[in-house]
């Protein structure tokens, strides 16, 4: 496996030269990157498609693929701005909670007689406001993004519960549920997928073809140097968190439309899926590195993997296990390869002994795991 984060040296470099701002992106480097991680993802996708179509006759069915593709669009919509945020060196753990807050607010308004479209617009605005709040705390008060968005992760989800309690908002009109359930006329392409594709192209162009996008990479590589170069760092950070909130609101509308109802636990845990998709796509969690193409490919990979496992009747939680393993391996394997090639002879015996000890402990755990399981469930 090749390295998804070529610039992420062990001591996550904060000393990139400032030429990032002036120079045009070196084209060869971009192609070289694409040849490494993105092609790796393409290869994995091909492997998954081939394997799955061998294992299940239902995999390569256009109708099935069309139906399952819309399952991942909310994750995708939130992943687009998450790529921005992670490239600036930040993180947004609150997206799924913001989604729930917006969807619940929309449902709450709707249950009180507000027509659905104004309610949806209000939800979008609330999402942007939630993102703006994150952005202000991160960029103006200068708090760590992890803590800020952990706080709003609880706060926004809490608002959703306060608004709807144990109730569900339902009865949305068909024109609204079309957003989540409808297909483009005369095609099998779901509306939400078309929406995602358009937005993915927009976000990709902004990231890779505009000054704003260059600034995002510059901030992630060296925030202080970028600020001293006259870039309005705080305003850009506030902007990306606000965009993230807006997209969470949009994802909330799409998800509520797909379900046809809203409950306050809507989208619980999706933030992990969003971050996983971005990082698996080669976006470096330390900031400064990543492509929109890679993130979209990894979303496709995750979607196809989960769909294939679903057809094989593998439980959702166990599917999550495979994705989690893939996430860790995508960073671990390149690091191991680098470590092995850089390892000197000294101290090797001691670390070998430690490794043996550790392997023994983990092996004991695995043995106990299967033994105790067999005690209750039998050998199966």
């Amino acid at each position, binding site marked *: 496996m090749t390295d998804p984060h070529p610039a992420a040296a062990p001591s996550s470099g904060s000393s990139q030269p400032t030429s990032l701002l002036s120079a045009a992106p070196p084209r060869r480097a971009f192609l070289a990157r694409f040849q490494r991680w993105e092609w790796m993802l393409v290869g994995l996708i091909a492997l998954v498609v081939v394997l799955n179509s061998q294992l299940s006759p239902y995999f390569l069915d256009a109708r099935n693929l069309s139906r399952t593709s819309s399952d991942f669009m909310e994750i995708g919509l939130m992943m687009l701005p998450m790529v921005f945020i992670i490239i600036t060196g930040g993180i947004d753990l609150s997206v799924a909670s913001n989604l729930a807050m917006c969807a619940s607010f929309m449902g709450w308004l709707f249950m009180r007689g507000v027509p659905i479209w104004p309610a949806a617009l209000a939800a979008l605005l609330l999402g942007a406001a939630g993102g703006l709040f994150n952005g202000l705390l991160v960029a103006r008060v200068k708090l*760590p993004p*992890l803590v800020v968005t*952990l706080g709003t992760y609880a706060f926004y989800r809490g608002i959703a519960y306060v608004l709807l309690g144990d109730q569900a908002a339902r009865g949305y009109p068909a024109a609204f549920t079309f957003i989540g359930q409808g297909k483009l006329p005369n095609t099998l392409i779901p509306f939400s997928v078309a929406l995602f594709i358009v937005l993915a192209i927009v976000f990709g162009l902004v990231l890779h073809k505009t000054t704003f996008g260059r600034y995002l990479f510059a901030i992630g590589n060296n925030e202080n140097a970028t600020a001293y170069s006259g870039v309005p760092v705080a305003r850009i950070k506030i902007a990306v968190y606000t965009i993230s909130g807006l997209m969470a609101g949009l994802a909330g509308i799409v998800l509520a439309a797909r379900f046809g109802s809203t409950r306050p636990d809507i989208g619980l845990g999706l933030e992990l899926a969003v971050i996983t998709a971005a990082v698996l796509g080669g976006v470096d969690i330390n900031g400064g590195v990543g492509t929109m193409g890679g993130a979209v490919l990894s979303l496709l990979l995750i979607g196809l993997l989960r769909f294939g496992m679903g057809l094989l009747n593998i439980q959702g939680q166990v599917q999550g296990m495979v994705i989690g393993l893939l996430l860790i391996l995508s960073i671990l394997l390149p690091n*191991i390869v680098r470590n092995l090639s850089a390892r000197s002879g000294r101290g090797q015996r001691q670390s070998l002994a430690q490794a043996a000890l550790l392997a023994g402990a983990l092996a004991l755990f695995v043995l106990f795991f299967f033994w*105790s399981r067999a005690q209750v469930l039998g050998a199966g």
Partner: protein
Amino acid sequence: MSAQQTPARRPNLLALVARYREAGIGIFILVLAVLVTLRAPAFLTVDNFRSILLNISILSIVALAQTMVIITKGIDLSVGSIIGLVAMMVAFVFKASPDFPVIVALPLGMALGAALGAFNGLVISYGRVPPIIATLGTLSIYRGLVFFYSQGTWINSFELPAAFKQLSKGTPLGLPNMVIIAIVFAVVVYFFLNHTRTGRNIYAVGSNAEAAQMAGIRRQRIIFLVYVLSGLASGLAAVLWASRFESAQTNTALGFELQTVAASVVGGVSISGGVGTVPGVLLGALLLGAIDNSLPLLRISPFWQLALQGLLILTAVVVDNLILRRAQRRRRR
């Protein structure tokens, strides 16, 4: 990267903040207690205090371990899943052999948890995977293992021996065993962090990793160690959890990692590493527990609980930041 600009000043300043913080949370808890008691006298009774202690025992054990991880600039998001998996495994053991000695359950749970924590530590310290990514991955992996292990089944109260259920709730020493275990754990962690070389090294690695390395501290080992300890504490918590709630479910402790981080952060632990005290974290856990406890007494809908927790985290970090800035300004004069 401000740590590199003011390497000498920062620890002192943050220690100052931590001291302010403990007093601050203490006063906050007292004010809250008075206000709640005015409206609901049942709050200030021995029985209620005992129930708060019972409720925060598990939280404080895991939050203390989480604190050690955060001091090294890490985070362990997998604690909830470790608790879920170990609780299920221990419950399976007792279902299969009800005569299994109850006292062995605690070390068994700790060993199982430590093994899971060792995997985290291995991936993070030697594999150099960022902690948030590694534990995000194992959060899914360990939770998936719970489903794989139990085939989606639950262990219910009637399937567990009475002795095991009494393990957490019995009161041979006056207080419930669980509370005593939490107190002993807190004392051990306090001694470890403040009076052992390894414990001090945890702070050193967190406040300035390069300086620690130059001082001869084996950074990778320390980082590996804190994740093992975090797993161990989660394993201990898992046994108490299964015993207290008399069941093991596939969603046991789902989302618990948030509360452990919340207790640490509210207790004055800095997410940028190097700072955090045992008394602060215990007060943080106590504050979270007191709020949860007072909501039903005040007849406030339990649906407010999560929103209040979030607000509390945000308030705590904003206040920290303000104190830190004021202290910095005073320093400069």
